[in-house]
């Protein structure tokens, strides 16, 4: 019963990839990148971020920009974002971000956009996942305020969330058949410091560690740049140590 439900939810999370595949212009599938990153970067039981919250925010921001690149809407060249195609993407969040990119032409620096998008990214992607039914918003009381976490709540949702890192580990162990989207996800996971969470077993994942560099290295130039800027931003945010 639970397994059946898991399959249904996992299928919902992955549905958009099939629709995205039908677009002739796209470099790969968009949409799911940030969702997958979100599920990997948050604890499925508590909904807390596994990383420094600012690092998670940057990873999610990069995933959102990555989705637009995968859909062929934007590109990156020498640290600047370039708008290639103004047609709105089918996903509401991607549409919203593309609109912002178009409306704010004075900002082109990738790292500025990463910093900007990172502020709200966790909430925005959390909302998108809750629309898909993969997580539910849970409001908790804290000392003086309340916080809303987006976390898998039912056993089925939790299984689906746990599948996200496991799927990535399996892909890496096999080392073949990774889509561009998966490879960007791998790059962002490595850049933000989640590799050891995904590849938690040194013995079983020995091969996977070896296939990591080629998975990221073989990405198209703009996506590789995106991963590099993400790592640089995470590095400087972590060095300063502010919340």
């Amino acid at each position, binding site marked *: 019963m639970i397994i059946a439900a898991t399959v249904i939810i996992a299928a919902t999370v992955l549905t958009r990839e099939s629709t995205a595949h039908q677009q002739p212009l796209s470099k790969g599938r968009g949409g799911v990148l940030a969702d997958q990153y979100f599920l990997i970067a948050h*604890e*499925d*039981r508590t909904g807390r*971020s*596994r*990383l*420094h919250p*600012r*690092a998670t925010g940057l990873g999610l921001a990069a995933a959102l920009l990555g989705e637009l690149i995968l859909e062929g809407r934007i590109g990156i060249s020498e640290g600047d974002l370039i708008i290639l195609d103004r047609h709105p993407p089918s996903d509401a969040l991607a549409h919203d971000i593309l609109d*912002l990119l178009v*409306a*704010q*032409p*004075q*900002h082109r620096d990738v790292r*500025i*956009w990463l*910093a*900007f998008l990172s*502020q709200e990214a966790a909430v925005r992607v959390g909302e998108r996942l809750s629309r898909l039914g993969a997580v539910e918003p849970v409001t908790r009381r804290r000392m003086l305020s309340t916080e809303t976490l987006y976390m898998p709540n039912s056993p089925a949702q939790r*299984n689906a969330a*746990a599948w996200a*890192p*496991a799927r990535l580990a399996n892909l890496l162990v096999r080392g073949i058949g990774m889509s561009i989207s998966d490879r960007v996800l791998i*790059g962002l996971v*490595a*850049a933000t*410091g*989640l*590799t*050891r*969470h995904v590849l*938690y077993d*040194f013995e079983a994942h*020995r091969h996977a*560690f*070896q296939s*990591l*560099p080629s998975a*990221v290295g073989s990405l198209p130039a703009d996506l590789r740049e995106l*991963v*590099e800027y993400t*790592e*640089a931003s995470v*590095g*400087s*945010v*972590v*060095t*300063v*140590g*502010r919340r």
Partner: protein
Amino acid sequence: MARMEPEEPDIVSKALAKNRLGVPSVVFFGVAGAAPLTVIIGSITTIYAIIGSTAVPIAYLVTAGLLSLFTVGFVAMSRHIVNTGAFYSYISHGLGRVIGVGAAFVALPAYSLMQIGLFGLFGSVASGILGAFGLSVPWYACAIAAWFAVAVLGLLWVDLSGKVLAVLLVLEISIVLIYDFVMVTNPADGHVTFSQFSPAPLATPVVGILMVLAIAGFVGFEATVVLSEEAKDPKRTIARATHIAVILAGVLCAVSAWAMSVNTGPDQIAAQAGKHQTDLVFQLVGPHLPGFLVDVGYLLFLTSVFAALLAFHAAVSRYQFALGREGVLPAAWGRTHPRTGAPLLGSITQSVLAIIVLSIYALVGSDPLVFVFAWLTTIGGLGVLILMWAASAAVLAFFMRNRRRESFWKAYVAPASAFLLLTVVLVATCIGFGELLQVNGDSPFQWLIPALYVAVAVVGFVWALIMRAARPEVYAAIGRGTDGRVNVVPDSTSMLRALHADPVGARSGYPY
């Protein structure tokens, strides 16, 4: 049609500015690193006692001016390079990577020793305070208690939040001003003298020694450039805040040093300082102030030293983290705790070093104020002076190649004069270093410390050359710091598992 101005407001800049630091926050960060109360009560009295010169106030003013001059070029250069975290990245950009790695090797012991020295001050003061309550606690017990707290907070990467620091700092400055006022209104022979500000003694050989001790008191102000990516306006906020921090700390120290000597009389200050050591100020103001204001002063002094300990601990671990991430140190140093972002190994290394040094001192039974605090911070101060000197040369070399639209003053005049003045101070310091440590003429410490710094720098040069031969791609990234992307993929061999570098629960809770 011309390109339309954006009709919408600049949402991005606004949203980013909301979370960023303005001038006051950066000033607090810089001044807190320099810890004025620690310097005034800890260092200035020690300087008076050791050097016996009355030129301390003018020395602080001149040092503040010199560092301000240095800041001009330093901050101008920080706008043009990516990694602004540490002196060595400026040096490797300006003077080449070989010298940069040498500078990094000088920086590690320098900052590390300064922090360990502060433990001596903390221990001695805390045990004095406990002694007043009738509890006889040796200094190293207090120092180890502080060490434990700093080690834990360092691992958790808790730095005192901006607000806590700001409140403490405002209180510290207020109490300093109150004390200064009391001391100046109660002069020794009934009249206030200003001869302490006479620049005449600065022409004597004592100047180098005075200035290295003064510079040691400012160390920490240069950390403001770490925040350049967090500042509202990276171009102006950092520059303005750094200048304010330097001048604020300089004026505060100079006025306090002057006030002390006014109260005792210039001829008596050295003797009094030798007698009362770090209690000097409290002894001087005690007769004229209600008792609680003196108690508050002691308390703030302790918190100030503790905040400085924490700030230096963070600075040292951050340095090691940057070097590890760049591949100069083994990659394990470049790893952070996933959730808190704490540079784990850097933090642990510094804590382990500190406890070893403190234990040795405790076993030998040396005096904590002279041999732990004064010696180690002076030795560390010399290292930082060497770094500043090299950094000022690097700034000059950097702008000589390309002025990058900085003004003539910022690109050439200020860096060149800072370099010349720092050279004078450095040479004078190296010559008089034995006197600084108060050792006899034939003691090896006369020349050992500068020689050791030269030695570690040479080790750094050699290490850089080895890196260039063995790992050219890592070598090429030196100086790009945490900004540099060395390798996306962590190596699978080094194990940090025992140090829970993995998120808690990474292994459990999944139906694999």
